[in-house]
């Protein structure tokens, strides 16, 4: 390792590398184990546990210090040297800790959740591989490596979504997820290539940190100018679009979000880790890494899309009946908030929300996992034909699953953003800063904070609906089938410990000693931009109070609707209901407008290939064969024909003469006499 910044303790890098590499080793070991081996779970868990400790040490060493950077030459291509290295700053240290911290309870949970599966060790192989890719993603310093891990994350997510690969829905979902992610990858790759062509380096530190190259470059007269040269400015936009595509694909933003609800086909523990807490946050992380690339107007676009995604996903979540799908759309909605925060310049709040959201959403998914597991249990025990994820069959579970219920309440309150939870701190931060940002901008842009605000009430409603339907009222399945037996409980310690751990992490003390003011949170303070406005604005007081009072009303309304009256709140046939229930018809639109035309294009190409290109070849072939046939004909009929004519002539003469030699005595005699006669006649006449 060269180029180490002098005063750094090199062991930090060793810890970081080890934290990343341990899951990889675990994955390799598990890969070699027999598929049912129970040791696999503990190997992976141990690896992530050690990784967690190491990450904590790295975090402690790096937090609020100078960025640490080390690199080594990977390979040289032409005159370009490509380095591989580690970049540790607040952002990556936080992510490193966050990912391993969330992965740990999920691992523990998984050992119980997957214990009956036939391919137990494969599951942990994939899970560890995912941890490796995700941890690698957050610490690498080169865009090439970043891209590599970016794709590996998508790849391991592909493996895990399709873990039960005999289910058709699962494999369709993982294909969809990978291809959608690929669209984003293409964007990211294009962006990296553009940046490389512009700045001749892949190094994130040089490009984006502090006195960075990107920050210094300017757009002027339609050219993107920096010290290393200039290219047309349009390519700066293309690069930003590329980055945005990558973000949209990974973090499930409109219009590339449709894979995430489908990805719920994977095991629930996987959904908790990958599709709620870590991988989907990678998009936000990427934005955090390349933040200087975006200009103000591009950030505005980002904010608009984030806001729209948040709103759209929330409306869809209102009507879904699948437990995991509701959570998935809620994830999309929350990710929309993060993007919105990035767009409005609330860099710190965005990452803060990322961290808090990771905990409580993971918690909620694990709760869902427990519920689904128990429902599945009932289903199998009583041979019922029901969907274990459908919330219509649930209800009143709070008495059966007390620990789960408490965890669920904590998670929901955090998601709603009630004070004393972590969600309150981060979400209100975003709302407040969005309002601040819209000050002094056009009226249209005021819609963004307003939309975010409205969305937060929608969130309250659908979360309350979910909670009420699952945990309150009476058990609807029992009402339908009174004869079934119920043997359900919170499950073993592998279920309870992660839930409790995550529930604690979803409360305020982990992040801030002051439960009401987000700007006092230590995480936020370290990440906030320099020009942050202090608490001087009216929004800081009004918004939290307004939001929360109304939230309580909405919660009560939901409770009233679903428990007291137990009816549907919306007309089931209304347009809005159908729009929401069918997820805004986006899947259908994509299938009709994009997938079909592309497949059609493929077919057309093939037709073109077979009939036009190959047809041309065949035409050449046929015409040359025709020429050949023509010459052959002339050869046969004209050249040979002459010869044949001569032969035929000779033959016919011969045949003519031969007729006289037919062996018939009388014919000879006749000829002879005829000739005699002719001689006589001639004699007489002459």
């Amino acid at each position, binding site marked *: 390792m060269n180029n180490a910044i002098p005063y750094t303790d090199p062991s930090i890098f060793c810890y970081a590398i080890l934290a990343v590499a341990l899951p990889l080793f675990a994955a390799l070991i598990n890969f070699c184990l027999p598929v049912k081996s129970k040791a696999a779970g503990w190997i992976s868990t141990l690896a992530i546990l050690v990784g967690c400790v190491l990450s904590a040490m790295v975090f402690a060493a790096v937090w609020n210090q100078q960025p640490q950077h080390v690199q080594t030459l990977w390979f040289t291509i032409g005159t370009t040297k490509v380095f591989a290295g580690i970049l540790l700053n607040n952002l990556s240290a936080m992510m490193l800790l966050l990912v391993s911290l969330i992965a740990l309870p999920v691992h523990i949970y998984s050992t119980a959740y997957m214990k009956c599966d036939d391919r137990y060790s494969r599951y942990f192989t994939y899970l560890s591989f995912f941890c490796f890719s995700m941890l690698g993603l957050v610490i690498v310093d080169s865009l090439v490596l970043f891209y590599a891990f970016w794709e590996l994350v998508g790849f391991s997510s592909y493996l895990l979504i399709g873990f039960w690969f005999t289910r058709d829905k699962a494999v369709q979902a993982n294909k969809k997820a990978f291809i959608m992610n690929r669209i984003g990858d293409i964007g990211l790759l294009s962006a990296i290539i553009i940046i490389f062509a512009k700045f001749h380096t892949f190094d994130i530190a040089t490009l984006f940190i502090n006195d960075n190259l990107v920050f210094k470059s300017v757009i002027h007269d339609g050219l993107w100018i920096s010290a290393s040269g200039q290219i047309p400015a349009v390519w700066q936009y293309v690069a930003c679009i590329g980055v945005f595509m990558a973000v949209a694909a990974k973090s499930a933003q409109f219009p590339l979000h449709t894979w995430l609800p489908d990805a719920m086909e994977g095991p629930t523990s996987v959904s908790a880790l990958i599709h709620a807490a870590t991988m989907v946050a990678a998009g936000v992380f990427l934005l955090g890494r390349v933040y200087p690339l975006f200009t103000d107007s591009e950030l505005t676009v980002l904010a608009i899309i984030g806001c729209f995604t948040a709103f759209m996903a929330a409306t869809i979540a209102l009507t879904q009946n699948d437990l995991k799908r509701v959570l998935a759309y809620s994830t999309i909605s929350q990710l929309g908030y993060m993007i919105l925060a990035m767009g409005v310049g609330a860099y710190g709040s965005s990452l803060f929300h990322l961290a808090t959201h990771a905990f409580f959403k993971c918690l909620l998914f694990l709760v869902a996992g427990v519920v689904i597991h128990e429902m599945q249990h009932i289903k199998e025990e009583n041979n019922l034909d029901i969907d274990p994820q459908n919330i219509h069959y649930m209800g009143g579970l709070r008495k059966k699953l007390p620990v789960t219920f408490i965890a669920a309440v904590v998670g929901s309150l955090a998601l709603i953003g009630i004070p004393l939870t972590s969600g309150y701190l981060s979400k209100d931060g975003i709302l407040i800063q969005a309002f601040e940002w819209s000050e002094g901008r056009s009226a249209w842009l005021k819609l963004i904070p307003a939309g975010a605000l409205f969305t937060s009430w929608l969130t309250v409603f659908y979360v309350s609906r979910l909670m009420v339907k699952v945990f309150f009222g009476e058990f609807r399945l029992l009402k339908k089938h009174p004869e079934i037996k119920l043997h359900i409980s919170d499950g073993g310690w592998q279920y309870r410990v992660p839930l409790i751990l995550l529930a604690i992490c979803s409360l305020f003390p982990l992040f801030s000693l002051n439960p009401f003011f987000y700007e006092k949170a230590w995480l936020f303070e370290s990440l906030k931009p320099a020009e942050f406005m202090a608490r001087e604005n009216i929004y800081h007081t009004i918004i939290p109070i307004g939001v929360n009072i109304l939230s309580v009303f909405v919660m009560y309304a939901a409770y009233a609707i679903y428990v007291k009256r137990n009816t549907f709140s919306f007309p089931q046939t209304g347009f809005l209901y159908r729009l929401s229930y069918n997820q805004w018809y986006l899947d259908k639109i994509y299938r009709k407008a994009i997938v079909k035309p592309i497949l059609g294009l493929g077919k057309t190409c093939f037709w073109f290939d077979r009939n036009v290109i190959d047809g041309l070849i065949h035409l050449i072939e046929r015409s040359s064969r025709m020429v050949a046939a023509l010459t052959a004909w002339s050869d046969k009929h004209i050249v040979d024909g002459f010869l044949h004519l001569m032969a035929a002539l000779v033959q016919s003469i011969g045949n003519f003469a031969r007729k006289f030699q037919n062996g018939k005595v009388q014919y000879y005699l006749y000829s002879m006499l005829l000739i005699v006669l002719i001689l*006589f*006649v001639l004699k007489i006449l002459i």
Partner: protein
Amino acid sequence: MSLVRLLFYVMSFIAIGSALYAALSKNLVRSIFIFFVTLFALAGLYVIALADFVAVTQVVIYVGGILVLILFAFMLSGRETLNVIQQQKGKFVNMAKVPAVILAVLFLAVIVNIILKVDADNLPWVKQAIAQKNEITPANSTIENIGINLMTTYLLPFEAISVLLLMALVGAAHLSRKEGSA
């Protein structure tokens, strides 16, 4: 018209008529037997031509020898010939024979033409023979003269003919043997 001339016409009519019948008949047996008639009629014509020995020889050899031989041959190859008979029934005019008829008629025309041109009765040597009385008359007997001539003037041909006859005899006998014993 003298009796001789009448006889000549009758004889020649019979000869030509029977020959034509033999030629046109589709039945082999009939044509063989009618051929007898032709030969007898010819023998008669020889008599009228003042060659009584030749006429006798004709009757003896032809009728007694050759026709018997033909009849034998016919009988020995019977089945095939009978088949031929059956096949040939019914058709009077056969297109296949037309060229032969034409040939024969043309030949006849040519020969008759030649005969008329030659005017045989007025040939120099015939005139001379009549003048020198070297002409056979019905009163002469020619047999004695023929016998003398055969043994004197025509001895060499006579001997040659006898050798030829011997050869033909041997040859015919050889040919007629069964193949297997050859």
